[in-house]
């Protein structure tokens, strides 16, 4: 790989920063030097451009962060009850995959996914009804966007009280959290088809239902998927936070709160890793479906 020639100003700044940190602590100077070298590598990749740079730079940046984390924990001997090293987290992850899997199934598959599906379908149904009655639409839109900004997750203790400790209450919290973003976006989207297109359907003598299925629903899809994507993170948050208010002895939120109490932070971070992977994969899956459904939209081409 041909890197950029080392420029004088960069070298001077880097040297100054390393010397400055060496004044405080030699170990800090090592960390600073590693960081500057990797950042330099990253900057040169970014500046060279090319099709690969878009993927390589974020990867290098991520690896840099992990390496610095590992170095800092090792050099400064940070106790693992405060911040475990990435290697320790990876080791813990590898040996406790069965516990992590059980927690994942309990929280994500049973709690978050089922709640997401129920909430999404309910919001979609309400949006279709609201779309038929103008009063309802003009009333629901402001109320819905107001509700979407509220701390809905605060309903968790109430819903846990109503639906018990198992996954049903978690699904209920998720329903409450994802309902309003999806509702607002769907109602908004159903108005996205413009007057010209509606007139065309009218000249075809299309019925209300035909106009809905063939024109207005497809036109609403980018909006609906926007709501669905926002809701993926909310679903996972809702399911995990609801477990803080009571849960069976399995689940990601249960594990996080009990392992924090036992100061087993490597396990907590392993659980966070699972949550991050699940959250990203969930978002990615919805984004993929979006690309498949709304292939005609300018943002997808």
């Amino acid at each position, binding site marked *: 790989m041909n890197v950029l020639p080392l420029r004088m100003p960069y070298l001077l700044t880097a040297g100054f920063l390393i010397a400055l940190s060496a004044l405080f602590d030699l170990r800090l100077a090592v960390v600073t030097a590693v960081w500057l070298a990797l950042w330099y590598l990253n900057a040169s990749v970014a500046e060279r451009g090319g099709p690969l740079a878009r993927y390589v730079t974020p990867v290098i940046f991520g690896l840099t962060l992990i390496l610095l984390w590992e170095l800092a924990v090792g050099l400064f001997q940070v106790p693992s009850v405060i911040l475990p090293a990435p290697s320790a987290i990876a080791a813990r992850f590898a040996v406790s995959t069965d516990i992590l899997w059980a927690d994942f199934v309990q929280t994500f598959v049973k709690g978050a996914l089922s709640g997401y599906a129920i909430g999404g379908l309910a919001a979609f149904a309400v949006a279709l009804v609201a779309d038929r009655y103008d009063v309802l639409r003009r009333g*629901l839109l402001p109320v819905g966007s107001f509700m979407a900004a509220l701390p809905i997750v605060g309903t968790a203790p*109430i819903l846990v009280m109503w639906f018990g400790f198992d996954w049903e209450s978690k699904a209920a919290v998720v329903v409450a959290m994802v309902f309003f973003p999806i509702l607002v976006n769907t109602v908004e989207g159903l108005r996205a088809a413009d007057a010209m297109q509606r007139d065309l359907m009218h000249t075809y003598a299309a019925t209300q239902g035909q106009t809905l299925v063939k024109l207005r629903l497809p036109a609403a899809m980018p909006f609906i998927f926007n709501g669905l994507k926002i809701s993926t993170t909310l679903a996972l*948050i809702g399911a995990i936070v609801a477990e803080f208010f009571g849960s069976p002895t399995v689940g990601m939120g249960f594990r996080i709160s009990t392992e924090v109490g036992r100061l087993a932070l490597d396990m907590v971070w392993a659980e966070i890793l699972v949550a991050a992977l699940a959250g990203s994969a969930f978002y990615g899956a919805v984004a993929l479906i979006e690309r498949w459904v709304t292939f005609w939209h300018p943002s997808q081409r």
Partner: protein
Amino acid sequence: MAEAAVPATGAARARMPGWISRASAALWPVIVVVAGLVAFWYAACVPMNAKEALTQAERGGAVISPEGAGERRDMSSWALVVGNPGELGAVWSLDRPRLPAPHQVASELWNTSVGMALEGRMWSNRSLFTHAWVTLSATLLGFAIGAGLGVLLAVGIVHNRAMDMSVMPWAIASQTIPILAIAPMIIVVLNSVGVSGLLPKALISAYLSFFPVVVSMVKGLRSPQVAQLDLLHTYSATAGQTFWKLRLPASLPYFFTSLKVAIAASLVGAIIGELPTGAVAGLGARLLAGSYYGQTVQIWSALFAAAILAAALVALIGLVQRVVLRRMGLAP
């Protein structure tokens, strides 16, 4: 005048100032929907609270069709409602209902806030003002940190190609992580290294509020058109001048919109941050304490206090937005 031509029925409306009729046209569907929700809430109280209400009525000497609370425990609420239509008066006035009625929540809300303030106990331990202030201070501190950091990061991303390509994907990825889930750990860990009180909660708020600001500010700082940038280039403006005189003013509408999202997220962060601290003070602590002791009315009133706080903060930013943008000639 156009109003002169409207027929007699429309004359009353035509005499009203324009904004009143516009506001009422926008408002009455909202009122209809809210009234519908309140009615649904009252109706939902009947099956939700039927069992406790019937138990209470039986203690008071009334005859309930399957006698004894034990008999009724496994029955469906609907069957009980249908079987004892006359004895359900208590569903809206129970002490610890499963679902408190709206007026119960409203009166609890009033009694623990304005009511206590009128008695001169505005900052007592049970007053919602105390708890709201604890939450609000963490929210505002976290919001300030998060928004400031977000703006700095956005400026860096706009001016540095390497930062744009490496930080932006991670900023987006960081939001697919359910950060609230780490809240208890952050609080406990920071407590163990001696940082406690306001700051840990504020950090969670900051993490939640920085992202909307970064995304919007990057969009806003890049919103000037090529022609405008070219014009400044012909003036031989420096990068700094371009930033202060063109990019920053152009980004303000984006900035305020993102602040509204950010402050709502910040409030959620502060509330969740209060859960693991052992329910000392704050709206989140009220929620947790209420759920420990089955004080449903208290949970609901804390929830509504949080909602009112969120609405007030968003409205406040909206007000600042209108004043600032109007001063700058960016809004009508």
